[in-house]
């Protein structure tokens, strides 16, 4: 029997439909086979697709949210490149969805921080739903290395210290070159004979 899971937030609603995988011994209220899903957004076109598309959406959005927590957002895309999220200005994020249908243009959706948080929440709710008994290929959240965090420091600020150091080195080298070289003194001519002791 067909099962439906629904997750609501203020700006979006995610609905997943599917069937229990009886061959895997799943209960009658579980979803082991996703037959379809749709994501309704207030004032935006509705998205729908198969399990692969839903997984692609999660593969792009959840790691992007992880990077946002470290204030180091950068382009994230799904394994099949069909979904990507990228920063599009302060507090704005651009979600691009490429259809698997030929000759269908990509759909671009701009989300503010609140709408992105709503989307992350419905995806989290789905991911943690015990009735959804599916293996989703999602990367685990990991700490970032120092190099990955450099992007959040503006380039000018990052380069200020090394540029200043190079300038100081250059100026001090030039100043030392301007100093007159010490005169050569004939040591033999200037050395006086030692006076005998009385």
């Amino acid at each position, binding site marked *: 029997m067909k099962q439906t899971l629904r997750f609501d937030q*203020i700006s979006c609603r995610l609905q997943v439909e599917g069937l229990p995988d009886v061959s895997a011994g799943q209960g009658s209220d579980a979803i082991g086979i996703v037959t379809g899903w749709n994501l309704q957004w207030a004032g935006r076109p509705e998205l729908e697709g198969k399990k692969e598309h839903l997984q692609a959406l999660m593969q792009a959005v*959840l790691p992007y*949210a*992880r990077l*946002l*927590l*470290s*204030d180091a957002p950068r382009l994230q895309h799904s394994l099949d490149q069909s979904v990507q999220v990228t920063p599009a200005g302060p*507090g*704005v994020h651009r979600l691009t969805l490429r259809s698997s249908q030929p000759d269908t243009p990509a759909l671009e959706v701009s989300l*503010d*921080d*609140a*709408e*992105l*948080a*709503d989307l*992350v*929440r419905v*995806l*989290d*709710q789905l*991911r*943690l739903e015990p009735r959804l008994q599916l293996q989703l290929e999602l990367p*685990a*959240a*990991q*700490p*970032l*290395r*120092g190099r*990955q*965090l*450099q992007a*959040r*420091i503006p380039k000018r600020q990052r380069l200020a210290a090394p540029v200043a150091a190079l300038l100081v080195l250059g100026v001090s080298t030039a100043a030392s070159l301007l100093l007159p070289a010490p005169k050569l003194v004939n040591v033999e001519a200037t050395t006086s004979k030692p006076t005998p002791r009385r």
Partner: protein
Amino acid sequence: MASPTAAPLPRRGIERLDLMLLCAEALDLNGAEATLWLSEELGLTEVVSDRVELWKQRCHNPLRRHVRRGSLTPSETDALIQVLCSQSERLYPLLRALLSAQEPLDISQQRWALFEERLRELIRERLNPRRSGVQTLLDPVGGAPQRRQLIRTMALAAGQGGFERLKASLMDASS
């Protein structure tokens, strides 16, 4: 990305964790009580037993007036992160309203002004004003991006699903 370890939270991670708990208190006048109540709800009373224990753990934040040496144990860290995720879940409507660009500008500005005023009071009361990090947070203009980042982090870490994400971000290498 670095591999996850059972290493203690770095200094910057403890700082951010405590600042977000402070933001929760600024958003909710009963935030401190709610933190204790939530730790009880989550069955964390062994780690966060009372107000004093919570205060002692939060005093590992290097920006505090009274800083404790050492670091939080992994169980203390996990407990505080769990409590923060639950707090964020509870406060999500407020967090969302602060972040939304769809809200009328004047209402949004009023909300931010109220939150920032409360946060400023809490910061002056509990953090060391001589630390440059505290001075930046108190700066009405210069500290705004950091305050927004704290609110955004809380919104994206709300609920059970946010725990791993938030923990990973608090374990980031210090930059």
